[in-house]
């Protein structure tokens, strides 16, 4: 037969190393995958949601922008509609404020209190916020309105995650 004979001992060694190697790989692979998982999933783009608002139509006056998305609420998935108050700053920066009052969660609106024009107003307990979303001292809310991350794509406004004031 061939010149290079494989002894019984060598044959067993090769097989055991081979099988052992597969087993080790089978155990290690998921561990490695778990370990580097955050790196792999971090670049998903932050879940921006498209609105129907054209960026070019935004002005310095806060506008109501509705957007809807699918939300899993406990047991069932529903289509949720949210609102943001959006305006453009003088330098072109877009500000999108959450309408949820930081007091007890009512929905605030722009410029609806005749006694205090050009402020966000909460009808429940008469909380007020200035245009940049900062709560007016002496009214019930104790912190400024949350802010959406914004992005422009193909002239359309996209809204991202909700951040505390001053972080988006």
């Amino acid at each position, binding site marked *: 037969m061939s010149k290079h004979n494989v002894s019984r001992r060598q044959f067993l060694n090769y097989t055991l190393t081979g099988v052992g190697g597969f087993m080790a790989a089978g155990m290690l692979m998921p561990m490695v995958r778990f370990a580097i998982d955050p790196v792999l999933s971090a670049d998903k783009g932050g879940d921006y949601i498209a609105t129907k608002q054209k960026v070019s139509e935004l002005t310095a006056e806060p506008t109501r922008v509705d957007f809807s998305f699918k939300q899993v609420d406990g047991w069932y998935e529903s*289509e949720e*509609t949210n609102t943001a108050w959006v305006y453009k700053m003088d330098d072109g920066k877009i500000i999108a404020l959450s309408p949820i*009052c930081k*007091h*007890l*969660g*009512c*929905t605030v609106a722009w410029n609806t209190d005749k006694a205090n024009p050009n402020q966000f107003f*909460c*009808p*429940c*307990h008469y909380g007020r916020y200035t245009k940049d979303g900062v709560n007016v001292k002496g009214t*019930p809310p104790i912190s400024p309105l949350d802010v959406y991350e914004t992005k422009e794509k193909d002239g359309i406004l996209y809204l991202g995650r909700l951040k505390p004031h001053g972080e988006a």
Partner: protein
Amino acid sequence: MRWTAKELDMYSQSKEYVDTVLIPLVPLSFGGEMKQTGSMNEFLTILSLEIEKQMKGRILLMPSLQYLHNEKDKVERLKHWANEAKENNFKHVFFLTSDYEWKKDERELENHLIWIPAIPLENLEIDQARGMIGQQVLQILDIFTYNWKNEKK
């Protein structure tokens, strides 16, 4: 706030701010009006949840009061609910319904009945339905703010 454990926790922490209860009144029927009551149930559920969303911090939305369309003592039952709420420091108790029957008892309910005809949502595009509900919510919110303002004086 809704009638869920989590939101009722929130309520007990901020009781002094929540002074209004909203009770949807939903009729049930197995007869010819069965579908109509279904339509009302659907409409009132969505409408009341939208109102709650806008005024979360001041309104406690109760689970709806359901009754058979020919039920005799429904007014008594409702009064019982309302009294219980008033005894527990709710200054305003409002009823929301699409059932015309309640109009007859309006006086007994001390003008706290909000009657609004049901929109047959099943025939509408979702965007259209949203728009219409949105408008009705705004009108109803006016009723609340009006009542709250007048209480202040």
